[in-house]
């Protein structure tokens, strides 16, 4: 896990006069790198140019100069749309719930796994826990819907046999369950995978610390609290900051696949809103305005997270 460092710091910066000789020397390097610069320009930077659409009454088929400029009209429309606040609320709710659960549970799971003394069992559990990460959300959504269904779904069957409920609950049809279902699905799918990094950090803690604690008579729980958790503190902070940066860009895949018309008021995220109202209805300019709003908030959150991170560790993630 040792960080790899640069070995050869050489070559003073080439001056303009030396550019072409070096260029011809390095023509193969240029040939290998430049196609991808073009690629990145087309597929990452050109869509940014598409942002102009939000300020135009965009009509497909017309050239850029033939479009009619409308200024902030679509943003005004957006901020007056009730659906927008609904989508914003759902996006924030699901990302905050996802952030908390997706951040805490893998740490707990990593600590639990680390406390398993049987190595074969530990490896088996780990292998099983990665499994859902590798199936698509399409498959996961199908499985989750089946597990939660009212006819012979495992969850309802279990709750019924434990006499916790008297008749099956319609999990997928009730809006107030939706945020919880999405969060739980995400936990089910990604916990094992997200544990890898914490387990690696735990294995980097020196065994002599535990040895000393045991000599001093510390219980296992005290060892977890005073050695394991402080030992992975840095990893925890870094991952927390990174996930804050991704807070609002939760996308729409889970919500698209798990949602249905009955729970629409709780399932529509900003991205899904852009998809439904921008693409679905052909309102490209309006949808682009939603995309822009989403990006601006994302960047703001990333900078905020980076600022906090800088304060704590004197390093920058960007």
């Amino acid at each position, binding site marked *: 896990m040792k960080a790899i460092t640069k070995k050869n710091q050489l070559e003073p910066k080439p001056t303009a006069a030396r550019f072409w000789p070096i260029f011809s020397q390095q023509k193969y390097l240029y040939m290998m790198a430049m196609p991808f610069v073009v690629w990145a320009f087309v597929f990452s930077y050109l869509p940014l140019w598409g942002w102009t*659409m939000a300020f135009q009454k965009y009509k497909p088929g017309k050239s850029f100069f033939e479009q009619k400029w409308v200024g902030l009209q679509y943003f005004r429309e957006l901020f007056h749309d009730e659906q927008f606040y609904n989508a914003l609320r759902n996006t924030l709710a699901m990302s905050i719930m996802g952030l908390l659960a997706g951040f805490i549970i893998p740490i707990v799971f990593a600590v639990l796994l680390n406390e398993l003394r049987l190595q074969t069992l530990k490896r088996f559990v780990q292998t099983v826990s990665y499994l859902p990460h590798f199936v*698509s959300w*399409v498959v996961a*959504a199908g499985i989750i819907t089946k597990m939660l269904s009212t006819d012979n779904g495992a969850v309802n069957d279990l709750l019924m046999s434990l006499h916790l409920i008297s008749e099956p609950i319609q999990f997928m049809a009730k809006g107030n369950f939706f945020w919880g279902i999405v969060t739980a699905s995400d936990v089910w799918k990604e916990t094992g995978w997200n544990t890898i990094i914490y387990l690696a950090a735990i294995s980097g803690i020196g065994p002599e610390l535990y040895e000393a604690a045991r000599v001093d008579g510390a219980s296992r729980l005290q060892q977890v609290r005073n050695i394991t958790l402080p030992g992975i503190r840095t990893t925890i902070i870094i991952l927390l900051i990174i996930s804050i940066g991704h807070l609002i860009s939760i996308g729409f895949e889970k919500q698209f696949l798990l949602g249905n018309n009955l729970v629409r008021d709780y399932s529509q995220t900003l991205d899904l809103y*852009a998809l439904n109202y921008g693409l679905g209805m052909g309102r490209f300019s309006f949808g682009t305005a939603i995309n822009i709003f989403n990006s601006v908030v994302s960047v703001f959150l990333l900078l905020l997270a980076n600022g906090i991170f800088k304060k704590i560790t004197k390093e920058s993630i960007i």
Partner: protein
Amino acid sequence: MLSKKLSTTSWQDRLFDLVVYVAITIVTIATLYPFLNVLAISFNDSTDSIKGGITIFPRVFTFKNYETIFAFSGLMTGLKISILRTVIGTILGLISASMLAFTLSRVDFQARKFVSTFLALTMYVSGGLIPFYILIKNLDMMGTFAVYVLPSLVSAFNVFIIRSFIDGLPYALQESAKLDGANDFTIYWRIILPLTKPALATIALFLAVGQWNAWFDTYLYNGSKDSLTTLQYELMKVIQSTTTNADSFRGRNMTQVMAQISPESVKMAITIVVTVPILIVYPFLQRYFVKGMTLGSVKS
């Protein structure tokens, strides 16, 4: 190793152990059971499945569900396209990521800083769904196979993982090759590529899983082109058909018809067909992805 050293265990530690084992058991069952349940239903007679009560073993064993779905042509097209995009997408993705990583690992490369920054920024800038859709449309890539491979060709994250691996190789290898008259491309192809195999295996797994699992690009760009639909997309349509009462339906091929009549067991059989290829590669690549994941996270 730990337990042998402790001759006496306090009751707190015993309780702690109990809590750990119970929690781990619950998590393991909760993760594994849904898969086993789906597998069991897919091998169970479909009319019998409706009665419910199937857990992890089929009650009336049959291959009929699988025969039903394989007899349907949409599935074979989906399978073919899914395999094609996975193989081609992974190979092209590996070549481009490693090639870029190699140029970025060369400290003497004078455009290094520019290329590196230009690429790193792509991780943070994104025009969003609709400008991207319009771009694909303007590039005339709607309804083409290229739309599966080209837009996702390079991932800056993967490039940086491979680069940090190349940085760990001794530079003397490249220098001696140069003295023997090799050009930069030969060095990449003959020396760097074979030595970066562990990193490439990790990235290959990421790329392959991403390609195999993708469905949204099909939905967005190729949904009305029957000859280019993927397996995940077909499954998506079948699964969505029940949850949305078939009202938000797109596409008009056989899947739709099948979706409306397909009983649970057939649906589960499609789920298994879509999942199995991942399960096959998974044990072979596990040691790589754990290593790669750790490396990648440390670097980021």
